[in-house]
């Protein structure tokens, strides 16, 4: 009787050892898995940021030539990186329609010369220097920018003429990390 109880106790200890070992091995593999998962997630996060930045960089170099911004033939022949200021003010008025269109959260244009820190509204146009087309209140990746010429129609005593100024087009994508 005493011997049987002792044998049972020994078996119970062995079972407990085994359970403990199995749990340790299981948690070890889970930890290893989590380690690799965190590396993979970090890589994914990095590639998401890289793709966002790359997208913004390539978009900003071509955005000025898109139909909503470009001068077209309105100022003589076609020009690269020429933004129609009059059309831009119309775009600003209809900005809500285009909020998701380019997949970026900030689109801003700043006149470089002559410099001005006044934000453009229909009342102060064209004596202003900052035009915000999209300005979503979210965390963003760094701005990508491109130099453009900002052209508009002007009038003088001699008649209507084209006036172009130097500006900087800036865009930023949302930081989703």
């Amino acid at each position, binding site marked *: 009787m005493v011997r049987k109880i002792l044998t049972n106790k020994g078996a119970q200890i062995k079972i407990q050892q085994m359970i403990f070992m199995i749990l340790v091995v299981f948690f070890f*593999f889970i930890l290893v898995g989590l380690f690799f998962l965190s590396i993979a997630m970090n890589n994914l996060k990095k*590639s998401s940021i890289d793709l966002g930045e790359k997208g913004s960089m390539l978009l900003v170099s071509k955005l000025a030539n898109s139909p909503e911004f470009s001068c*077209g033939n309105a100022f003589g022949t076609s020009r690269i990186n020429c933004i129609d200021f*009059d*059309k831009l003010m119309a775009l600003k008025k*209809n900005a809500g*329609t285009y909020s*998701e269109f380019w997949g970026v959260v900030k689109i801003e244009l700043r006149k470089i010369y002559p410099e001005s820190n006044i934000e453009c509204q229909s009342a102060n146009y064209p004596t202003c220097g900052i035009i915000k087309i999209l300005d979503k209140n979210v965390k963003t990746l760094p701005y990508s920018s491109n130099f453009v010429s900002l052209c508009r*129609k002007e009038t003088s005593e001699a*008649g209507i003429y084209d006036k172009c100024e130097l500006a900087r087009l800036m865009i930023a994508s949302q930081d989703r990390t």
Partner: protein
Amino acid sequence: MIKKRGNKGAIEISFGWLFAIVAGIAIIFAAIYLSSKFIQVGQESIGAQTGKEIGILLDPLETSFESSQTTSITIPSETRIHNKCEETGKFGRQFIQLDQKNFNKWVKTDVDVGFNNKYIFSGKEVEGKKFYIFSKPFNFPFKIADLFYITSEKEIYCFDTAPEEIKEEIFKLNQSNLFSKNCPENKMDVCFGVSKCDINVNYARGYVEKGEDRMYFSGLGEDSTSLMYAAIFSEEAVYECQVSRLLMRLKETSILYKDKELLTAKKGCETNLEGDLIALSKIDSSSGSNGLVTLKMTVDGAEEKNNARSCLLW
């Protein structure tokens, strides 16, 4: 331990062994399940990244004043690009979904990469390792968008009956799957004027026929062939959806030009286009390529009026 019990042939397995076997099987299955999920997620993320990269690569292909641009993409493994188009919202949406071949099996990824400002014309499914992309602007009457045409190196098109200007353009594109003469075998014949080929183009009346499907095209000036190429390289459903999306963008761009005209009028410019622009901003974009035919008259009228202005609106 496993012991033979008595002389009846029964086997006694100790609880320790039984527990180890059950727990071991559970752990192995959990490990297999988790690693297969992990691989699946990895493949989906590769598919999503490649899709996004293709979309990003299209940006430099947007034209400024060039008539067309071309490039190619080579993906390391055999890939299927699913071209999906939706007409929802103000501009509709373009989706790219990629499936890649892994150990000779197609791995489906459920991740769609979406763009609002891209118009990709191709079959619903394009398969291969090397893909050719070329782009052309679409003006109607002002520039609406750049159109992208994706073909696989496996799809060979023969344009040997095309008018000279189209042959010349195909030759200049320098794509190894587009031939303007000396076409190889296993090609798809694109015929102009002859009506019993794989793809038949009626250049004068502005439509492309593929089997039972007829797709209408239209355009202005030098880039009037943009939609013709789109119809040649696309399946009907993709073409009609993308044309509807282009018409959606035409409507919104017309509103911008209408507002611009009011703004320039204050500076002494003419206001002769308001009626046409209002008409263009109210078109039925869901009519698809059929609507292009009726729209052409308004567009031609607007183009003529714009050219007559002292300050051009576009």
